């Protein structure tokens, strides 16, 4: 069985401030973790993924995530957000059958 928990349904943050979107996972097998982004009126896009190797994963648009096995977390971070980062972000876990969390809406305030 596998699941992810995104504790924050909405995160407001001022432009140019740092942001962290939290994700905790549960998996009984090897862990493959993903972050996806859904911009308003657009389809889901893969932001980054962790398969193995370095626990710090860099993705598109300046985002990065860190895999922490002891805390079963895979938090998403960006040091300075832009208005264009306003979107919904989904954490996911799995191999081919990928299970998604309920999403976190990031609202960047000018």
């Amino acid at each position: 069985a596998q699941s992810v928990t995104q504790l924050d349904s909405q995160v407001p943050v001022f432009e140019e401030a740092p942001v962290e979107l939290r994700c905790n996972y549960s998996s009984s097998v090897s862990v493959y973790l993903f972050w996806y982004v859904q911009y308003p009126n657009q389809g889901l896009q893969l932001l980054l993924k962790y398969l193995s190797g370095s626990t710090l994963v860099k993705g598109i648009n300046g985002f990065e995530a860190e895999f922490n096995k002891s805390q079963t977390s895979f938090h998403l971070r960006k040091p300075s957000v832009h208005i264009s980062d306003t979107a919904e972000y989904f954490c996911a876990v799995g191999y081919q059958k990928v299970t998604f969390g309920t999403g976190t809406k990031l609202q960047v305030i000018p």
Partner: protein
Amino acid sequence: GAGVSQTPSNKVTEKGKYVELRCDPISGHTALYWYRQSLGQGPEFLIYFQGTGAADDSGLPNDRFFAVRPEGSVSTLKIQRTERGDSAVYLCASSPGAGKTLGPAFFGQGTRLTVV
């Protein structure tokens, strides 16, 4: 096409009717996924194809739901005797294939199904 294409973009049907939703993956992608997303929820896995075969159909909610991919490219999700609870956005995604990409990489815009 350049991306994953889903048709129709919107479908309204009456309770009890049969519907078909189509997905055109990125050319050459052997892995294809169907998900559905209800309001305020994350995408829910339905089925995964590798080539023509359904490698994992454990997410199909019941036997009213069926999906095919006869030639390993276009896929059709079929729903019989639709119920109001089937209303959701149905998402299709594709990936290059086993060993190259894990999980769905490119999503379509989805088909919004409304059962009235």
